């Protein structure tokens, strides 16, 4: 039963991906990307990765779609036709994909209990213990049922701090790009009493 769901979702993913490539209307492409995100999230749920699915829906299907629509509103809805022949890009994609598929043959079998990934730090994490430094090495329960939160915020706190900093860096980058040009012009126009701003923004 689960493989039927998997196959249906993967098939829909493939159909959506092909549609994204073939459709020329960028608004439709953005919507299809949102559908792609939702389908990926459904696959994550099948794999019991609900936290990842949650993030995929909120970020991939939600905010990314809005930002992409905002961009489409700025650049126009028609995708220009490429004059170049698609043979070489297709070849590169096929070769890369083939190598990736070949690489999967060296992976350990999916879902086996004795896979390397299950024997490293995971048992310690799953035991719901946080060993505290400086207290004679005694282990201590944290009683946080969601292991994902514990790993994210406690065991892997450095990584999460890094991720948060990356998000912050994204804001700095966008502000440097946008406020330097459009924003300042808009501000000076408003300062001069030009109140003809589009009241609905992106819409």
């Amino acid at each position, binding site marked *: 039963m689960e493989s039927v769901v998997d196959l249906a979702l993967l098939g829909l993913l493939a159909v959506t991906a092909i549609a994204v490539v073939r459709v020329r209307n960028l608004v439709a492409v953005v919507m299809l990307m949102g559908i792609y995100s939702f389908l990926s999230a459904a696959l994550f749920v099948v794999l019991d990765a*609900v*936290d990842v*699915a*949650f*993030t995929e829906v*909120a*970020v991939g299907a*939600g*905010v990314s779609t*809005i*930002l992409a629509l*905002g*961009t489409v*509103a*700025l*650049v126009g809805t028609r995708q220009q036709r490429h004059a170049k022949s698609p043979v070489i890009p297709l070849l590169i994609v096929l070769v890369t994909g083939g190598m990736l598929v070949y690489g999967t043959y060296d992976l350990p079998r999916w879902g086996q209990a004795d896979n390397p990934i299950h024997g490293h730090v995971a048992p310690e994490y799953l035991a719901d213990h*946080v060993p*505290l*430094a*400086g*207290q004679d090495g005694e282990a*201590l*329960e*944290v*009683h*946080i*049922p*969601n292991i*994902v*939160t*514990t790993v*994210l*915020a*406690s065991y892997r*706190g*450095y990584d*999460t*701090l890094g*991720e*948060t*900093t990356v*998000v*912050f860096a*994204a*804001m700095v980058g*966008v*502000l440097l790009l*946008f*406020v330097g040009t*459009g*924003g300042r012009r*808009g501000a000076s126009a408003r300062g001069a009493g030009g109140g003809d*701003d*589009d*009241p*609905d*923004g*992106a*819409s």
Partner: protein
Amino acid sequence: MRDQIILRIAAKILVGPILLFALYVQFHGDYGPGGGFQAGVIFAAGIILYALVFGLDQARAVIPMGVVMWCGTLGVLIFGGVGVVAMLMGGNYLDYGVLLHDASHAQHIGILLVEAGVLVTVFGVMVTLFYSFAGRRRAG
């Protein structure tokens, strides 16, 4: 979209519960799926919905651009600050165990503060990005 009465009423009904749901996702992250990243995005989505229906200027009147930019910075400071406080109290960087006398409670508090930092940053950054994109006029 301000003349679309159905959209306006629907948005008015939805924005409150969306913000509330974001807080639920934030504070329930210890027990179920969710956490700072998701909650921040959902909170931002509430504001973005408001901006889409009632206009960018109205949304900027509710939460000005300056505030969301500060939020984006403040969250990273909270996160890093928790680590520095842990160091000042004699532990390692981001070692929450030393924050309180009871190390188990300290872990809870540390995770709560750190997730709050993530929420504030993600919310601030998402709304800043939206304001920046939506505030630009179409070229040409």
